């Protein structure tokens, strides 16, 4: 009984661990490794753009990574992660290249017979659905209802400026 429990716990540990263990990432900018998920926390090192890292966990805008030698936190937007299990960096890059050239691997097209997608052809052939529009309108909410919903979720409005276009200044 005890053994069974221990092995169950081990299994769970392995399973939960595997989610993160399988995820790797690449730095897309030079970053300071921080001791905590905050830019005000102590620096524990630097990671260069292009470095491969392992992902340990994520927290809001931060991601904890291991470089092999060091662990620390960087901004989540500084790490491009690869998919779990199936994805490797190499296939990801190949995929991007294919997207750019418009070529797709036919073998990767998932057979979805009987399942409704939404292709360009579907959109072209569409007929006006007035009933659908009327139904949509029944869900329309006023500002007061949205504010009440926000209060229930303890959502607090923040003052945040729009982000400038990084290419515009040049």
């Amino acid at each position, binding site marked *: 009984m005890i053994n069974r429990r221990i092995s169950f716990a081990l299994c769970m540990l392995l399973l939960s661990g595997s989610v993160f263990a399988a995820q790797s990432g690449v730095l897309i900018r030079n970053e300071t490794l921080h001791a905590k998920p905050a830019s005000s926390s102590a620096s524990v090192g630097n990671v260069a753009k292009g470095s491969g890292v392992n992902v340990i966990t994520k927290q809001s805008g931060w991601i904890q990574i291991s470089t092999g030698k060091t662990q620390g936190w960087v901004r989540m937007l500084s790490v491009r992660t690869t998919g779990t299990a199936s994805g490797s960096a190499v296939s990801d890059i190949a995929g991007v290249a294919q997207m750019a050239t418009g070529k797709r691997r036919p073998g990767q097209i998932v057979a979805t017979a009987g399942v*409704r997608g939404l*292709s360009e052809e579907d959109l*072209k052939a569409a007929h006006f659905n007035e009933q659908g529009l009327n139904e949509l309108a029944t*869900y329309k909410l006023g500002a007061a209802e*949205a504010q009440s919903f926000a209060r229930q979720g303890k959502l607090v409005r923040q003052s945040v400026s729009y982000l400038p*276009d990084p290419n515009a200044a040049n």
Partner: protein
Amino acid sequence: MKKLILVALLANLSLAHSVYAFDLNDLGNVLKQIPGNVTNQNSASTPETSGTINKSNTKLDPVAVLMGALKPDSVDDEVQIGRQVSGNLLGASPLVKDAKLQHYVNQVGRWVALQSERPDLPWQFGVIDSTDINAFSAPGGFVFITKGLYLKLHSESELAGVLGHEIAHVVRKHQLKILRQSQFIGLGADALGREVKGQDAIQNLIGSGAEIMSRKLDKNAEFEADRMGMVLAARAGYDAYGLPTVLEEIGHVAPGDSSVALLFKTHPAPDVRFSMLSEAVGDRLDKLPPGKELANRFYRLK
């Protein structure tokens, strides 16, 4: 996210002829239905084509004509166009039959839209029954997310980010603006447009399907909508990183998967969008108090 989402229009005017769905036949049909003498005016100026649309006017793009008919600041006109486009989209893919889901998405979307410069538009949000991974918006405050994309989400903050991207397209009038930039405006389309104005004209021009939803916006419009989507979600009190998290997730879908074919055709690649956000954000949001993810409140589809 549509493109993510979008009612996409023309990115590049040079592509206008090949991309526009509406050809002169559409315009001809519209003109035939107008009482009055629009066609006669044409033929008067070019007698050799009397009774037909002036061939030298093949540059009179019907969409541009329609845009010429719109008052630049008329919300009613904008909503009318959006309504037509959205009705067509719902013809291709109806709303998911789940009133709780639709109500929930309207709650989140309306709250996020309230943080924008256009809080008073008649915002309407819907989840459409498609396995495709995509989201769309149409002028006047119509926003849609597919069931396929919704199923990829894990929290309310991710939904807020996706809706924020679509809301941004509407707020910035990306679809309308690109149409207005058409080189054909000013070639008489403006005057002609006033003649063809009306619901019937809009129906005829846009009414041939929801193909307009598969057009591509300028990639800079997509990057801008990403930046604004993050900020709108953050203003609403959500974790600002919902949208980039969704971009990562979509980036992990095999590019050849048919469920992302339209999305990838109409948008820059997810990791390019992620990188652009990375550059735009830098350290700017470091001092933002952590927002809420609300994974527990997120309405989960069975």
